[in-house]
């Protein structure tokens, strides 16, 4: 779960990381009121859970309430990379003297928390890594000792942080690390972390991503999640315990196992089609799970055909077929459905399915993908 900027900053402020004064607004009038209350030059920023909003025109620096309301209206009508803007953050504008990048993240290769600092902040960390790799300082944290002073001294020295910023930056890094650990964050990022003309250091942006596996112990943050942070079908699927990802094609996909489903998506594209979603029903094929999966996939108006691709392992092919048949009794299937069953007792499973007119059987992975694509494109098989 990604926190929106204003939520990340609320968390920062509560933990003692300095932020600027700001207010969240959902209407142009509220933007005007916020600008009036703050006074002077303000920044209006789209609140969406995706990067690149500045380049997309989702951030405006304005002089006074009238301009703020006008820009607020424009931004509130935007959709940025598929996410409609429902709210903006109105914040004091800052006189920036220097910009740092600060990140606490999980590094897969070293199986550890790493802390990253760069004096070339304000741009994407990948861009810094590509253009100025020598400006990135990194500390890998051994879990048995945690974050220590020497890590921070190393970061400051390697990152070339001037003496007058060291004290405030140290405090911010310590707090970010604590947030990562206590809040089960996979990423805590401040970019830019700015040194202002008056010498103070503040978080001008904030990204926090909470580990989904730890939602059960971060319930206060989960409760604050706003609807625009997720696609509605993804949210509904998550509530039903299904791993579903909305994609932009038209062949609905249901399969068992993440790797098998990913490979099914690849096969659809190899066959000239576009998958509408990723959906993993996991082990077994209980009628209830298949029914929920079908309902989610069919609720997507873009779906023109469905491919069900199941490997019968411990749950054998004939049991899978029975689960599919029971689910089909209860779902209004509005598009052609291709089924491929493989593995243990797949033949028995196929025989059970053969009697059903709404189901189109396929013997191989390839045949299944080709049939599903042809049917979605209005052809016959």
């Amino acid at each position: 779960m990604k926190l929106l900027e204003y939520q990340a900053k609320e968390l920062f402020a509560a933990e003692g990381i300095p932020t600027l004064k700001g207010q969240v607004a959902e209407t142009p009038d509220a933007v005007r009121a916020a600008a009036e209350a703050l006074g002077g030059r303000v920044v209006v920023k789209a609140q969406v859970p995706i990067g690149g909003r500045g380049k997309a025109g989702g951030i405006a620096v304005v002089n006074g309430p009238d301009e703020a309301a006008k820009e607020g209206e424009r931004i509130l009508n935007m959709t940025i990379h598929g996410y409609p803007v429902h709210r903006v953050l109105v914040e004091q504008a800052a006189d920036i003297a220097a910009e740092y990048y600060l990140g606490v993240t999980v590094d897969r290769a070293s199986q550890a928390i790493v802390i990253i600092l760069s004096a070339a902040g304000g741009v994407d960390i990948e861009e810094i890594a590509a253009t100025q790799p020598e400006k990135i300082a990194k500390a890998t944290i051994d879990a048995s000792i945690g974050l220590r002073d020497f890590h921070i001294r190393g970061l400051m020295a390697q990152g070339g942080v001037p003496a007058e910023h060291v004290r405030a930056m140290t405090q911010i890094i310590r707090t970010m690390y604590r947030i990562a650990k206590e809040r089960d964050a996979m990423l805590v990022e401040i970019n830019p972390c700015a040194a202002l003309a008056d010498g103070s250091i503040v978080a001008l942006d904030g990204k926090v991503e909470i580990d989904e596996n730890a939602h059960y112990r971060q319930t206060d943050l989960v409760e604050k999640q706003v609807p625009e942070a997720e696609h509605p079908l993804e949210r509904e699927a998550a509530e039903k315990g299904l791993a579903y990802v909305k994609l932009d094609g038209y062949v609905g996909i249901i399969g068992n196992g993440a790797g098998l489903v990913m490979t099914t998506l690849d096969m659809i594209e190899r066959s000239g089609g576009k998958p509408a979603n990723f959906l993993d029903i996991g082990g077994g094929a209980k009628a209830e799970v298949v029914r929920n999966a079908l309902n989610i996939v069919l609720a997507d108006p873009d779906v023109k055909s469905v491919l069900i691709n199941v490997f019968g392992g411990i749950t054998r092919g004939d049991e899978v077929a029975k689960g599919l048949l029971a689910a089909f009794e209860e779902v209004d299937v509005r598009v052609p459905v291709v089924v491929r069953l493989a593995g243990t007792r797949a033949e028995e499973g196929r025989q059970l399915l053969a009697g059903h007119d709404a189901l189109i059987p396929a013997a191989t992975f390839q045949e299944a993908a080709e049939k599903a694509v042809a049917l979605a494109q209005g052809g016959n098989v």
Partner: protein
Amino acid sequence: MSILVGKETRLLVQGITGREGTFHTQLMKQYGTPIVAGVTPGKGGQQVEGVPVFDTVKAAVAETGANTSIIFVPPAFAADAIMEAVDAGVELVVCITEGIPIHDMIDAAQYAKRAGTTLIGPNCPGLITPEQALVGILPGQIFKPGPVGLVSRSGTLTYEVVNGLTEEGIGQSTCVGIGGDPIIGTRFLDVLRRFEDDPETEIVVMIGEIGGTDEEEAAEFIKTMQKPVVGFISGRTAPPGKRMGHAGAIISGSMGTAESKVKALTAAGVPVADTIQDIVAEVKRRLA
């Protein structure tokens, strides 16, 4: 023994009294895996499928000489279970549990590494040396002994490939599911090293997917291997920034793309198959 598990395995099941633990204990036992003990805190003294249950891993190891543990403990308690097994001196720990918080796993994985314990998983189907030992939730009936070593981040794709190989009459030395999480104990590189040294293994199949850089790291090692490796990468059409079912299957920025993995493997001389059928065909061709 092929690699990691075999006739010498003396298995302990952590979480044996739970639904999954009991069910798979039954299946692993039917397969012929020597299961010597179970552990569920507070249930010591009971029996499950004729296996004695202990309160702690330490007691189970002391009483039964268990050298391998499999974990079916719920996600909130699984990292603790891994650390308990490491602390008790178990040599190989296989964690099936999906959904362990990542910060818990960082602690557990680093602890296992420091102690010199081999950890497989979490979020994995386990491993099998056909007709010797099944330590996991893999469907035993599709495997048969033979020359192919298989290592994979995906359970179901493993079954697809094994099914195809077995139908062609090609058996397997050991098949290892290393798991779909971002933090896993044993990576491709570690398993490839073992297959390279294993006299039973003649050829290796490696099934990777988007996310992380373990395939790229493995490709560097493959350059030094004597044995041939056939590769496969799933998620070639997955969009960036989306977690594709597995917590670890995500392209972050420009990191973890299928393209980068295919490129690294190809540069290491590994044929990267486009489909499951092609994997089987390539293995068959190389063994002929």
